[in-house]
């Protein structure tokens, strides 16, 4: 009988599903009261794992005390996140706190890395590893503990929400924050409580998963956040019991997926499931009422401001100075600026999509990856000259990017962000797994340098000029589009898509056009980057870069073309100049993002 292994896969899926459920329940609770997808949740989970590791390693605590310390530590961390990071953003556009949690997660992850070193650590399983035979499979003591904690915390949460006064307050706040406040509910306290509970659950999840795999590292946050979000979306945004079901379902899907296709497909299954749910059942699988359409969650992050009007001579002068820079013999400066300008190609694309059209894309770096791979493969496999391959890569990225994002075009607000995040991950995973085309984890090596008309551009100076010319060209083109009826239509969709559609603006069509134009620029950027580096792999353009690009765009002012270039150059070049260690760099980016959202949402040059 082949039942034994399947039983193991089922047990394994349910155990991992329990962990996902712990994460998803916290995310759902927080979404319920704060209307916010907490992207720092995975970081709290990592912190939980490290608190567990530290207390076992240094204090030699027994399991109950370890868990208690994790619960207290993470609960306090949750309170701090709510109090320091988010409370001040109350009443701002709904995407603002979401972006803030991204900043918080960058900061937390870097702090963990700085304090505990980036190397993986072994987290000992304090229960020993006894396994019991059941049916054809086995179940370990830790499995039972995880299941017990999962069921136990669900039961406790149910009792809390159902029978305590504070629990009622939580549910009232989730229904209607303003009404709850008017009835005398201290919603600040409710928020704090919910963050504490959610974070404690997340932290416990982190320790348990660390024990399960006997391995923790500071990079596990992002994955955990994503899995929690996927599980929550399956259950329906903010639906607490649904989140438990979603977690278990996700765990089982992954486990069976691994059984059938191998472990490198694990995440692909998770994200494919996410996109499927977003497209087919945006209210989640467990919500039956259909009368209320998915909560629009509109409100872009475009602050009401008047953009700083830079005099044309200043912009032209800056371009001239930039063009003359290579004449001073400063290869290191040029190198840095080239990197900054390459980022600017991504930032220009994102400022159009996220700023002008208001679709906060969290997976934009995937466009660079598509462009880089398209041009690289055209050169390596088909022998295309690079000066033909790069524009072709731009067109391929425009087409493929628009096609990929197509299911997300009819979504709004948070859903767009989650969908683009998922699509970005899917692109990276397809590149990793489609070995026949992309050479998988090996990446593309030995890419030829950029060329124009048969002349290789190998010197730092010539590459700089090429990238500068591209940035200026695309920026001018983009400015022209913005001044046409397209700019008007795009911004109208951002401001109020219902009103825009009522006046005949086909929102999907214009969003697709923005993604196509943005895809072209980003694709060219990715292609040039690939040829300049001469090597890329599936991690070259990671999700971190997507977040960084968003920071650049917010720094410059959303939708602001000059701002995007300025933001890209500043955020790339400044850390170089101050010679920050790479570790501190992400910390700085996280802080910049947090401070901007809090104090200057319109960025340096203002939103357009």
């Amino acid at each position, binding site marked *: 009988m082949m039942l034994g292994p399947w039983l193991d896969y089922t047990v394994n899926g349910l155990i991992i599903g329990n962990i996902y459920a712990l994460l998803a329940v916290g995310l759902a609770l927080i979404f319920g009261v704060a209307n916010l997808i907490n992207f720092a949740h995975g970081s709290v989970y990592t912190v939980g794992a490290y608190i567990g590791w530290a207390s076992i390693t240094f204090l030699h605590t027994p399991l109950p005390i370890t868990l208690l310390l994790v619960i207290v530590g993470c609960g306090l961390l949750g309170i701090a996140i709510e109090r320091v990071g988010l409370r001040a953003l109350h009443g701002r556009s709904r995407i603002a706190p979401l972006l803030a949690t991204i900043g918080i997660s960058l900061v937390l992850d870097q702090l963990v890395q700085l304090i505990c070193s980036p190397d993986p650590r072994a987290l000992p399983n304090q229960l020993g590893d006894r396994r019991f035979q059941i049916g054809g499979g086995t179940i370990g003591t830790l499995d039972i503990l995880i299941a017990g904690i999962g069921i136990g915390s669900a039961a406790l949460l149910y009792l809390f929400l159902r029978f305590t006064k504070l629990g009622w307050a939580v549910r009232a706040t989730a229904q209607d924050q303003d009404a709850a406040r008017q009835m005398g509910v201290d919603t600040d306290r409710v928020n704090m409580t919910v963050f504490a509970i959610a974070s404690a659950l997340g932290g416990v999840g982190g320790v348990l998963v660390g024990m399960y795999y006997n391995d923790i590292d500071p990079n596990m946050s992002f994955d955990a956040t994503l899995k929690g979000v996927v599980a929550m979306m399956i259950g329906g945004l903010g639906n607490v019991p649904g989140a438990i079901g979603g977690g278990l379902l996700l765990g089982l899907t992954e486990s069976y997926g691994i059984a059938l296709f191998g472990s490198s497909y694990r995440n692909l299954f998770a994200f494919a499931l996410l996109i499927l749910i977003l497209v087919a059942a945006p209210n989640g699988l467990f919500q039956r009422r259909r009368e209320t359409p998915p909560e629009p969650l509109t409100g872009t992050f475009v602050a009401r401001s008047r953009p700083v009007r830079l005099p044309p001579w200043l912009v032209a002068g800056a371009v001239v100075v930039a063009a003359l820079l290579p004449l001073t013999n400063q290869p290191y400066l040029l190198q840095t600026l080239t990197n900054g300008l390459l980022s600017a190609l991504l930032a220009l694309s994102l400022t159009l999509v996220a700023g002008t059209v208001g679709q906060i894309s969290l997976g934009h770096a995937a466009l660079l990856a598509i462009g880089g791979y398209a041009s690289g493969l055209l050169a390596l496999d088909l022998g295309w000259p690079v000066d033909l391959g790069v524009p072709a890569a731009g067109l391929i990225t425009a087409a493929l990017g628009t096609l990929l994002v197509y299911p997300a075009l009819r979504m709004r607000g948070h859903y767009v962000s989650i969908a683009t995040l998922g699509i970005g991950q899917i692109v990276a995973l397809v590149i990793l797994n489609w070995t026949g085309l992309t050479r998988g984890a090996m990446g593309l090596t030995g890419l030829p340098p950029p060329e124009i008309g048969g002349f290789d551009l190998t010197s730092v100076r010539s590459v700089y000029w090429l990238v500068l010319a591209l940035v200026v060209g695309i920026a001018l083109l983009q400015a022209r*589009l913005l001044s046409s009826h397209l700019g008007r239509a795009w911004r109208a969709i951002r401001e109020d898509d219902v009103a825009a559609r009522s006046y005949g603006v086909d929102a999907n069509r214009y969003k697709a056009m923005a993604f196509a134009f943005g895809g072209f620029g980003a694709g060219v950027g990715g292609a040039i980057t690939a040829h300049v580096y001469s090597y890329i792999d599936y991690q070259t353009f990671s999700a971190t870069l997507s977040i960084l690009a968003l920071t650049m765009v917010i720094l410059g002012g959303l939708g602001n073309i000059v701002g995007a270039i300025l933001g890209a150059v500043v955020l790339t070049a400044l850390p170089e100049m101050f010679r920050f260690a790479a570790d501190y760099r992400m910390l700085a980016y996280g802080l910049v993002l947090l401070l901007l959202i809090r104090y200057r949402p319109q960025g340096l040059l203002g939103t357009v």
Partner: protein
Amino acid sequence: MLQVRGLARRFGGVTAVAGIDLDVAEGEFVSIIGPNGAGKSTLFNLMSGLDRPDAGSVRFDGVDVTGARPERLAALGLARTFQHGRVFGNLSVLDNVLVGAHTRLRAARPAVPVLGALLELALAAILPGSVRAEERALRADAEKILAMFGDRLLPRRDQPAFGLSYANRRRVEIARALALRPRLLMMDEPTAGMNETETAEMQELIAGLKARGQTILLIEHKLEMVMRLSDRVLAMDDGRRIAEGPPDAVRHDPAVIEAYLGHASMGQAEAAE
């Protein structure tokens, strides 16, 4: 021009619109009145494509447009304003009005299947003379529309709409709707939140539109204005038609008086508590 038959919409257990029939002929001015919650705005949403009816049909110029997308209805010449005002806050007053003229763009929006969007991008990047001329003409037209509001909007045409007063935002809504050159103009409480002078001014403007032969469907609470302007009035309560006919007849219809008084006395009872 507009034929609504048996239109119904339920939200959960509540029936917001229960089988409404309504006809509007070319050049006619029809008003819809009724107490708050009578289903007037829901009816507007059903007719303008923002919500799909559970039953019934809508025909516009003989074409069945039941449940059609709002883009299509706009293209057919139906423009509406919103009860609570939905101007594009970060767009200038002029740009708001120009978005209203979106369906009139011809040179900039080639009607080619599949490749239309790409051509449109290319045209916006190249900006050939025909596109530029069209844009200039639209701008001139938009300024003419702004001028209809005296000096309320014209001096502020380049200001972002979020800085406008409430009354001015209502005016921008109407200017935006007029820019579509609508065959049917639907206005949802255009004078809400306006003082008496402003209301009188708005009434003047709407009377002017009517004199020009504009077909208008109006939701309005200010009965005096309804009585003066309307050719025909539809009174609703609880999603149903309770009276329909010439303004004077509807005003003295016992069902209408009952609906208003009934609600009014309830309102007083609440206020007394």
